[in-house]
């Protein structure tokens, strides 16, 4: 049976003290799947693209840039390569190679077309799985820190601020609210990382880059958007429109999210619970975790597992340096204990034979000398 639901403190935006407590919505207990988030993110990121292609005359399937000539190959026999050459005369251009990707002023290889598939369809359930996964990841301080947010001064994760924040009108007050709640360090980090983009994007209206700061999620915009939107790195989102591209930027889960109390409380209606289907999303229920107990260390050390294990095998001694048994008697004896007696017998036989030979030689000598 489910244990008591963890309670999350709601913080006052003026001084950061705790106002009240809310039960944590069950979205934050969804399975965390970086693979699903990655898949959905890479595809979702393609949906805001604008088409580009090489210049084409007379409509999309007209004449591609580089093909506006009536060039023909001169064929063989004229001591030139067989590339199509520009017709006509009276100009440098005449007789020059045309049409190839290797030619100067030729068309490119595989000219880009606008009917390329720019956008991707993703199954609704997959999208929702990814969003709930990303939300669950944002509730774990380790993952948020691992993503690079500075949250060591934050009183609690998930960070919930009282509903009065939604009526803040001035950016000055917004800054004070974030400071009271310890979230401003992350904003400051964002501000300090603003740099000119490396690459051609800087000349293409994408001049600056900076790190992402906190995501502020609200339920009703009573001025909060205008107050917070100018802060560097801060993004705003309404609860019912949570975007994976903001929850897991770069498909890296664990965005630092600042919730307003009404937004936090509405999560149970938007995503449902384990016992209740979602109200806002049709036919949707929260995904279930495939594993209920993920503590590998505990599982391995548990009685159930340990009692079934065979006793640990002692490591058989391996040769430190392999010695040849044919040369090294000691090693030979380890392999074949009878080798010792065999050797002994050999030596005895050698002795006997040696003695016999000596006797024979001695007799020979005596005969020779006589």
């Amino acid at each position, binding site marked *: 049976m489910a244990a008591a639901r963890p309670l999350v403190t709601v913080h006052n935006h003026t001084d950061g003290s705790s106002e009240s407590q809310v039960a944590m919505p069950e979205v934050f207990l969804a399975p965390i799947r970086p693979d699903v988030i990655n898949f959905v993110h890479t595809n979702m990121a393609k949906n805001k693209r604008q088409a580009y292609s090489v210049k084409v005359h007379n409509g999309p399937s007209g004449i591609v840039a580089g093909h506006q000539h009536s060039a023909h190959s001169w064929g063989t026999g004229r001591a030139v390569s067989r590339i199509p050459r520009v017709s006509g005369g009276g100009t440098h251009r005449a007789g020059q190679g045309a049409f190839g990707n290797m030619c100067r002023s030729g068309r490119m290889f595989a000219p880009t077309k606008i009917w390329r598939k720019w956008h991707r369809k993703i199954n609704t359930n997959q999208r929702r799985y990814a969003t709930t996964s990303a939300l669950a990841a944002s509730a774990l301080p380790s993952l948020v820190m*691992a993503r690079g947010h500075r949250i060591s001064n934050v009183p609690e*994760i998930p960070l919930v601020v009282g509903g009065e924040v939604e009526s803040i009108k001035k950016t000055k007050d917004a800054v004070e609210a974030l400071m009271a709640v310890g979230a401003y360090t992350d904003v400051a980090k964002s501000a300090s990382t603003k740099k000119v983009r490396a690459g051609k994007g800087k000349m293409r209206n994408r001049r600056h880059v900076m790190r992402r700061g906190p995501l502020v999620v609200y339920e009703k915009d009573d001025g909060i958007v205008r107050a917070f939107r100018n802060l560097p790195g801060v993004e705003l989102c309404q609860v019912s429109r949570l975007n994976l591209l903001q929850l897991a930027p770069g498909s890296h889960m664990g965005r630092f999210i600042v919730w307003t109390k009404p937004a936090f409380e509405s999560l149970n209606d938007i995503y449902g619970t384990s016992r209740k289907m979602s109200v806002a999303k049709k036919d949707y229920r929260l995904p*279930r975790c495939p594993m209920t107990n*993920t503590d590998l260390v505990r599982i391995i050390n548990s009685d159930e597992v340990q009692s079934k294990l065979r006793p640990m095998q002692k490591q058989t001694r391996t040769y430190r340096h392999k010695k040849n048994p044919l040369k090294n008697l000691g090693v030979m004896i380890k392999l074949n204990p009878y080798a010792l007696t065999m050797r002994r017998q050999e030596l005895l036989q050698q002795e006997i034979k040696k003695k016999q030979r000596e006797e024979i030689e001695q007799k020979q000598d005596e005969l020779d000398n006589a």
Partner: protein
Amino acid sequence: MSSDTPMSDSLRWELLRNHNSFLLKRGGVTFSRDPLNVTKSHSFKSSGLANSKVVAVQQQGDKIALRRKQRAQQRRPRKNATRHLLKRHRANRTCKAAAAIKTESGRSFYRRDLTQDAVARYHALHKASRRPKEVAPKRPRRRKE
């Protein structure tokens, strides 16, 4: 069905293992810049992010601090970190700081496996802090002529 997320140190490690902002992979070596990592090696045992019980030694100003995580405050970053300043290095022919580290990490089997690493890191930091800092000679900016 349990409503508690099955979050454990092992699972956290699996999620953080392949990429996190503290991971450093350069020139064939892998390290971790995690402030709560004692040995700064990228492994489950020493990871400050993945583990709920952590022992770390950090430089704090000109003092060295021993840091631990409080098991009860997993979701509260501000309260989670406990800092213990190691003020006295040596007294009565024993290294007081090392003794403090040993009790802190060994107390009720907190993280006994990290004790040696923590003491080693303390000594390394202490040695480094005593070395006079090499200040590069200030060269005034010269106008190009």
